[in-house]
């Protein structure tokens, strides 16, 4: 077995060199993405109140306050939380604007304060009628603008794609909130 010792030593040396190369490669390739500073104390979670809107049988949008455990630290996170709360449905018995098991797939916030949110698409023919469409779109638009400071307009994408319309509303551009659709 003595004949094996030089071979083992050579292999160990080469493995060591390969590992060192990997470490150098990793450290050189690392980007300048945000870096957590060690020793920063964990911030205490601050609960936050959000204003959501759900469609009612009177065809108006109805306010519903929703407490979340932690104030979202960014506009993007705030928008995602608002949409997730909307998708979870009303706690006061209003209709759910999203009539399919939807999910929030991506959220952007542009420098102009427009939220662009990508929602999983509805099955074909699922969104029918102006009231369904208005309830779906403006529950999201009004909720996001009311709950996330700095948000001015909202554009919803479905399945990662810009949808011109479900047959009625023009969804090809960011929409401003419509307070006139809210129940008095």
């Amino acid at each position, binding site marked *: 077995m003595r004949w094996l010792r030089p071979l083992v030593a050579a292999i160990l040396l080469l493995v060591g060199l390969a590992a060192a190369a990997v470490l150098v490669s990793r450290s050189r390739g690392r980007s300048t993405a945000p870096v957590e500073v060690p020793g920063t104390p964990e911030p205490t979670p601050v609960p936050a109140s959000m204003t959501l809107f759900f469609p009612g049988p009177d065809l108006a949008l109805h306010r519903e306050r929703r407490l979340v455990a932690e104030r979202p630290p960014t506009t993007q996170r705030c928008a995602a939380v608002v949409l997730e709360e909307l998708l979870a449905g009303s706690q006061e018995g209003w209709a759910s604007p999203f009539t399919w098991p939807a999910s929030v797939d991506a959220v952007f916030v542009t420098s102009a304060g427009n939220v662009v949110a990508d929602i999983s698409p509805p099955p074909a023919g699922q969104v029918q009628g102006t009231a369904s469409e208005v309830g779906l779109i403006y529950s999201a638009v009004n909720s996001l603008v009311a709950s996330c400071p700095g948000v001015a307009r909202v554009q919803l994408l479905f399945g990662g794609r810009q949808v011109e319309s479900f047959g009625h509303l*023009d969804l090809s551009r960011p929409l401003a909130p419509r307070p006139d659709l809210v129940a008095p």
Partner: protein
Amino acid sequence: MPIRWLTAFLAAVVAAPLMAVTVVTPSRTAEVFSRADLVDLLEILRLTGAEVEFAPAAGSYTARRAGHEVQFTPGGSLAVVDGRLQPLPGPIRSLEGHTVGNLAVASALLAPLGWSLQGDVGSGLTLAQAGDAAPVTLVVVREGGATVVVASGPPALPRARPASGGLALLYQSPVRLAAPVAPEGGLGGASIDGNTLTLQLVPGWEVAASYPLDDPPRFVVRLASAFPTGEAEVQRSGPLVVIDPGHGGEDQGAQGAGAVLEKSVTLAVARLTAERLRAAGIEVRLTREGDETVALRDRTALANRLRADAFVSIHANASPARGARGAETYYMSADASDPQAAAAAERENAPAETTTLGLILWDLAHVANLNASARLAREIQDRLNVVHGIAARGVKQAPFVVLTGATMPAALVEIGFLSHPEEGQLVSQPDTQGRIADALAAGILAFLRNAPPPAPAEQP
């Protein structure tokens, strides 16, 4: 045991080069983080000289170069390119502290900044400035009295702007025509200037509609004669109303109990309303006479070409809210008077030249129509409230595609809820449809009676 060590050694030796990929640029060679087919997007963007910033509030990166800007977010598969949203060919991920994507994603982020990526992860990548113009293929089709032009080729869709004597398609990088284009129908020719492809129109033709399509990316321009059958040239003795039976053809609209289809209900009510208006001496045109598919923008375009005095789109409603019933009447939201929508509407309707003054005048005309549209909507809604026995339901505003760009008072009427078990049955019955048509016709006539006369033509 030695065999196991040897295997581990060989795996390490083989894997090590795949941790980074060599990227050659015109000025340098660099090693960039890579895993399988994924590459570090930020490093590649920086190699082009782009300035890459992270915005903590938005959680997104922005790369800027040569006046162009690309914004993207780890975890997403979308980018905002010069303010326009663009789907990416794959997701952007965070991996071992790097922001990575596949080569198609990297190419999609680089293209707006004027760079292209060639090669593969295994053999190395080359970054080159995209100097070569992308070919644009134009297909021209005659469709009835219209001419349809389809522009395809470049991966990014263009923006359309009215141009002198035609329509300009503005691409993100230089383009060239894949083949010469012969005049056909309403298309007089096409010319290229850098990033801009200009479609020249034959005099007397105008852009009836223009819209993008995906998979593959195409831009469609529909040209129509300004006076297709001489209708608009004819001096009318009385007002003309265009009635739009919502949906039709493949687009069935909402479906009620008993397989009642919205497209059938709207056509029946539109025909009955037209009968009543004609009996009152009003000229009426329907946007569809049968069970046909008609694009939303083509419906408004017809009313614009005919210079109608009013446009009414008839629909039947549906709602997830139990118990929702009654009629609703909408008119265009004030949003549509913002510059972006005005520009979009001008693209759809106006053969006018691209001038700021033209845009402002269009905007003013549109805002002026908002008041008249509100009155038209109220006249209709008040009468439909009586039909449905609902005391007070006002009119509403929202940005409807079918109302965008209408150059006359326009309203969209939801005559009742197909999703309501009783109302859905009622609106499908001929006698209820007759009462709804009575209300619609009476509302339109009341509007026309009180409409101010058209402004007299200016004397030279």
